[in-house]
């Protein structure tokens, strides 16, 4: 049970700054997801929290104690790696108990903790196997188990599901969520997959190029993204961005009013999520169907608008279009997002 606080954390590799003035406080028991495209510094920041990278400046506090000059083992953290990082020459039991044995914990206590972790993760039948005899999902469970036996204050996950196939990823995501509900530990989870971020997080931190773009709950990020980057990153399929005009407080697309905005007159960017669009004979989005993808319960329409812009809409499975058909879509005005020329969202 612990809080985590970053104060003005910065990191330079040579002359390149990879983390810019990072301030973040994570509450006790919170699961915070760092998300962003690859190379945005999220993994580096996690390694700094773990103590595997030094800080160029700033402070890290875990449970109120400054830890950034401490070695990793004294910080009260445990980390799960993308490649599992199991010791290949030790069996599952050896892998789970290795850190405790090294800490000179009593044998009975090691057995107790190893057994608890094995029960939680369903590893009891695999205890005497070597890592190479396990499947990807089992290996990842052992890696998580190794973190559990340390009884850390903070769990750190570095893209733990990236190496698993799609079905297993969904399964393990649920397992991690259950684990968090059961252990109620503070957790930091790094991923580049926005679906993982949305489903797991209490709060999401969106990174781009070493800077925080926005911090908020998944729904806050979805409903009120701070800027175009966050709006485009969160949500699948991604939000449509259309060039529009603003005139007298009205946002116009091909001279049809879509919504109202406080944006000053002039060109602007309109953001609409594919799932908020619906077929509407009076709607402002008119175009011809380029591609129609039917998934059974739902369907994606790729539209070519009159002015040449393209957009995607997610409709329910009732609809049926053929390429070349004309299609008219509408949206509720309060679901529209307007972005100014700097990409920042304009409050409606």
């Amino acid at each position, binding site marked *: 049970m612990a809080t985590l606080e970053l104060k003005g954390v910065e990191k330079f590799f040579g002359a390149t700054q990879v983390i810019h003035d990072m301030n973040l406080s994570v509450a006790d028991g919170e699961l915070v997801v760092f998300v962003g495209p690859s190379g945005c510094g999220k993994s580096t920041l996690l390694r700094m929290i773990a103590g*595997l990278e030094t800080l160029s400046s700033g402070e890290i506090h875990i449970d109120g104690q400054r830890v950034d000059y401490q*070695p990793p083992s004294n910080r009260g953290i445990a980390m799960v790696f993308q490649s599992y*990082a199991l*010791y290949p020459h030790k069996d599952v039991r050896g892998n789970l108990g290795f850190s405790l044995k090294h*800490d000179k914990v009593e044998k009975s206590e090691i057995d107790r903790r190893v057994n608890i972790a094995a029960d939680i993760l369903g590893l009891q039948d695999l205890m005497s196997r070597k890592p190479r005899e396990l499947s990807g999902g089992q290996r990842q469970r052992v890696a998580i188990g190794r973190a559990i036996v340390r009884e850390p204050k903070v769990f750190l996950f570095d893209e733990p599901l990236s190496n698993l196939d799609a079905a297993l990823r969904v399964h393990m995501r649920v397992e991690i969520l259950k684990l968090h509900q059961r252990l109620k530990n503070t957790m930091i989870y790094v991923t580049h997959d926005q679906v993982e971020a949305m489903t797991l997080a209490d709060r999401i931190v969106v990174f781009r190029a070493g800077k925080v773009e926005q911090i908020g709950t998944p729904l806050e990020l979805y409903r009120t993204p701070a800027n175009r980057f966050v709006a485009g990153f969160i949500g699948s399929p991604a939000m449509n961005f259309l060039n529009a005009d603003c005139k007298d407080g009205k946002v116009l697309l091909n001279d049809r009013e879509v919504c109202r905005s406080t944006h000053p007159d002039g060109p602007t960017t309109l953001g609409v999520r594919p799932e908020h669009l619906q077929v509407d004979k009076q709607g402002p989005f008119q175009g011809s169907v380029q591609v129609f993808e039917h998934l059974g319960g739902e369907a994606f329409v790729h539209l070519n608008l009159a002015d040449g812009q393209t957009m995607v809409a997610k409709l329910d499975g009732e609809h049926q279009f053929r390429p070349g058909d004309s299609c008219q879509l509408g949206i509720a005005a309060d679901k529209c997002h307007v972005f100014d020329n700097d990409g920042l969202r304009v409050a409606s």
Partner: protein
Amino acid sequence: MRRIQDRLGSVGIHAILLSWTLLALFPLALIVVNSFKTRKAIFGDPLGLPTGKALSLKGYESVMTNSDFPMFFGNSLIVTCVSLFFILLFGAMAAHAVSEYRFKGNTFISIYLILGIMVPIRLGTVALLNLIVDMGLANTLTALILVYTAQGLPIAIFIFTEFLRSVSREIKDSARIDGLSEYRIFFEVVIPLVRPVIATVAVFSMIPIWNDLWFPLILSPGEETRTVTLGVQQFIGQYTVQWGSVLAALSVAILPVLIMYVIFSRQLIRGITSGAVKG
């Protein structure tokens, strides 16, 4: 048609490999075969098998009883094993340092350590002899061990560095989080992962040391400190050469290398091939 071509290709390759094997084994076989023959038979019929009157174990008898051969054998074994131990230990540690840690002069140091491959250590024989004499180590096995360790390190570091770079960074990080010291990470995590490479380096380093005549001749030719290769010389006199004994001594001297090779061969092959295909 295609299958016939494949067949012919594979027969051709095997024919080449087989003739190469025969060529390489021929001198060895000649030594072993002739070591079981009388002196007369060795010269009368060098290629003949040791049958009937030609058979003689006199060579082995004189090697085992009338000479200091067991002592020479022991000296060789001590020098080889101790040098090998230091080469493996220091080679792996140096390679771990240059491949794992980022520090100023890292590239310079790794190039400096590997540069030794290109400079034959024998060029420095005179300087080495002076140094050894000044240190009072002439005619000791220690002198040989020091020189052989230095001789074996560059290639060992070169091979180890390549392989240690391929050890997953996350495993080492994970051990760091588990609270292992850097030494224990090296001995308990890294070393078990590169065991095939250790076998490779061991075999590559061992053979030149075991077979060397140059340094024993120069640094420790004393009666007590002779190695096998030097010891064999005692059968080669100014006027007569006891060929039976020489060949018997050489045949026995092959044994340790052969045993080591058999022990390490599976790991050795894995070590050599995993470099190419990352198996």
